[in-house]
């Protein structure tokens, strides 16, 4: 904590000083940073241990702090998957020897924990110091950080419980990090010269080469994945996540999918074309699309919903004659008195035959 109080003093001194440095080209803009200011903010620790502060702690020291400040999110043993991905787990004594976490290659551990991935011990020190605990970042002393890191490393069996982690021993423990050899920069997603010429990466060479073929580019379309039906409404009602005007609408995922165009031929009663003609003549198509909802549901939706009813024909006839409301939403369908009994019968027959547009 003393680091921060010193910072405050330094800052208040600096505020009274107009140490405007004469930066070339832009006089009057910016000023020299004071050493205390740089010390207050320059808290990063690099993989070459630059920036690592003095301090020390053991897993025993860390355990108390951990249970008070860390366990509520990460679990007593850093294993919790409740709030964050587990910190510890999935590494073995063999990994500590090889520096490659075998479970990453072979699977077998349900998550990719922090200890499985992190190659550099300084990453953990740096992050705990700058960002933890979650609701009070930068409140830990450097000794606290050493102690908590020691506790984590002990959970992963990288160091013993009474091992003192300090600015010297931390360098040695780097050689025991389970995934220390698990990273590569041999890829094309970093700019500049390749590693062979002093840069990092492969010089920007992509790892895949597609070609812009235009015709007959393949024999067949291999469709390998689609959204499972049970996930249809997992992201809510998509109708409410799209515009209410324009060339498309969002799907009403709180309702079943629009029935496919073709109804099973065998089960369908024969259709003589009179029903569709009647539906057309009496204006039914003004509110009901054959395939899609307009004001009311699409006819194929109506069929899909009700065809399994034992009284489907009577039910549908009744709905046409008397109208209704609530089955497909709040917009009412008025009674259709202008449709004759004969026409109602024909329309129902057409519906139950699969409601094909003709």
């Amino acid at each position, binding site marked *: 904590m003393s680091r921060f109080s010193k910072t405050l003093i330094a800052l208040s001194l600096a505020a009274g000083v107009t140490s405007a440095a004469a930066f070339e*080209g*832009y006089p009057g*803009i910016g000023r020299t*940073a004071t050493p205390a200011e*740089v010390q207050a903010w*320059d*808290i*990063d620790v690099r993989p070459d241990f*630059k920036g690592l502060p003095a301090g020390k702690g053991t897993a025993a020291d860390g355990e108390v702090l951990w249970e008070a400040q860390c366990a509520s999110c990460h679990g007593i043993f850093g294993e919790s998957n409740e*709030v*964050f991905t587990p910190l510890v787990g999935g590494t073995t004594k063999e990994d500590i020897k090889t520096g490659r*976490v075998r479970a*990453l290659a*072979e699977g077998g551990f349900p998550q990719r924990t922090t200890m499985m991935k*992190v*190659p550099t011990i300084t*990453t953990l020190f740096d*992050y705990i110091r*700058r*960002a933890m605990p*979650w609701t009070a*970042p930068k409140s830990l002393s450097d000794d606290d950080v050493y102690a908590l890191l020691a506790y984590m490393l002990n959970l992963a069996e990288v160091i013993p419980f009474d091992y003192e982690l300090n600015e010297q021993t931390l360098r040695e423990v780097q050689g025991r990090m389970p995934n220390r050899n*698990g*990273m*590569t920069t041999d890829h094309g*997603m*970093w*700019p*500049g010269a390749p590693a062979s010429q002093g840069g990092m990466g492969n010089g920007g060479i992509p790892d*895949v*080469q*597609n070609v812009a073929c*235009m015709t*007959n*580019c393949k024999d067949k*379309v291999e*469709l390998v994945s*689609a*959204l499972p039906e049970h996930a249809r409404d*997992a*992201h809510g009602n998509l109708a*409410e*996540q*799209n515009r209410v005007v324009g*060339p*498309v609408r*969002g799907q009403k*995922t709180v309702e079943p*999918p629009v*029935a496919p165009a073709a109804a099973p031929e065998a089960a369908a009663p024969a259709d003589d074309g009179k029903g569709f003609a009647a539906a057309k003549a009496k*204006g039914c*198509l*003004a509110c009901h699309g054959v*395939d*899609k909802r*307009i*004001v*009311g549901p699409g006819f194929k939706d109506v069929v899909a919903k009700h065809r399994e009813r034992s009284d489907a024909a009577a039910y549908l006839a009744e709905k046409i004659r008397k109208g209704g409301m609530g089955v497909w939403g709040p917009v009412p369908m*008025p009674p259709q008195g*202008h449709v004759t009994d004969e026409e109602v019968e024909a329309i129902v027959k057409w519906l139950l035959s699969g409601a094909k547009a003709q």
Partner: protein
Amino acid sequence: MTHPDFRPGRIRPAPENFLSGEQIKEVAAGRRDFLRNAFLAAGAAMAAPAAMASGSKAAGDPAILNLPEWSTTLGQPVATNPYGMPSKYEAGLVRRESPGLTRVPGSSVSFAPLQGLFGIITPSGLHFERHHQGWHDVDPNRHRLMINGMVKTEAVYTMDDLMRLPSVSRIHFIECGANTGMEWGNVAVPTVQYSHGMLSCSEFTGVPLKLILDMCGADYKKGRYILAEGADGSSMTRTIPMEMVESGEVLVAYGMNGEMMRPENGYPLRLVVPGVQGVSWVKWLRRIEVGDMPWGAKDEAVHYVDMMPGGLHRQYTSIQECKSVITSPSGGQILLDKGFHNITGLAWSGRGKVTRVDVSVDGGINWMPARIEGPVQSKALTRFNCDWVWDGKPYILQSRAVDETGYVQPTYGQLRKVRGTSSIYHNNAIQSWKVSESGEVGNVQVL
């Protein structure tokens, strides 16, 4: 096509679509007797059941015949909303979280509604969000930018200082490295908002970082890396290549789309690193350090590392490779009807300009060139459009972008062959949308 009333495909005109295609054809052919019935029914449905009682015969579209309240009453005065808001009818198009993706809203993401956006600029209020330890509304008068490390003069700038410096304004896309990350192994989300919505594009205004590093006398010879650090709780850090700073493209930005950066996007100051994944565009930017090696920060040693088959992780993957997606028609939508549709979408590349986009409606067997809407800018979203007449049959829509390096956006098959399915990051595969006979569009994957 010559008759003004005959619009192929547009077979559901107002109000709420009361003519069928066949009926329109009949109108075109001069047969109007059926119309009476259709209008009767439509009018009844609109005002039912009360209007039924009146028994009035509609003579046309009620949206025309019955003057709406906005034509017959006084409207609202100026400055009713001092900061204007979208129409109430646009309420569906908002940033949304993907249920179950993250467990802590302070370290989460909200996705931009690409399915309803036009052109290339993302409205600032719809810009996607990704925070690592929650967001703050930072007091600009207490915000500082510090430059330290391998520089002659370690320096501090206030926002006043930075906003006095010569500024530039540039349009660039920003894409999270994990955009489309949920889809590496299989289809996981229904719409383009969730599959590609960690993507936005804005005009950013600020100062080239090079100008500031020049002022401080940066050691460009030895200092080949910079560290960018945020002022939020996580004090998020990322290593940025000095090559990019030297190009003049990296900005210390305070402006976005003509106003100050929004708090969720880093008010008052964020780093803009064109072409590079969003995590490097450090928000609430408080410090730049010049150094001679990368820092191995949490977000480049534990997260934002791309796991390859065999368990090796790629570290410091940064550039967003060429990618495109059809935004409409897209997953979770339903086509209003058969006939003409404009296939529209976005293309971008972290390596420069998009030079062409092709569209396929048969799952990638045959392709046709899309129209690119200019001006095409480097490392910016590029809008493309392609005419299409839907005949009611099933189709699989795809788009494929090519950038100025000649790189062609890859297929899922090609990407997975090299990178497997566990990488999480940098999925730039060709996206497929399946149009069913019902008009419903769904998310599918084609190798």
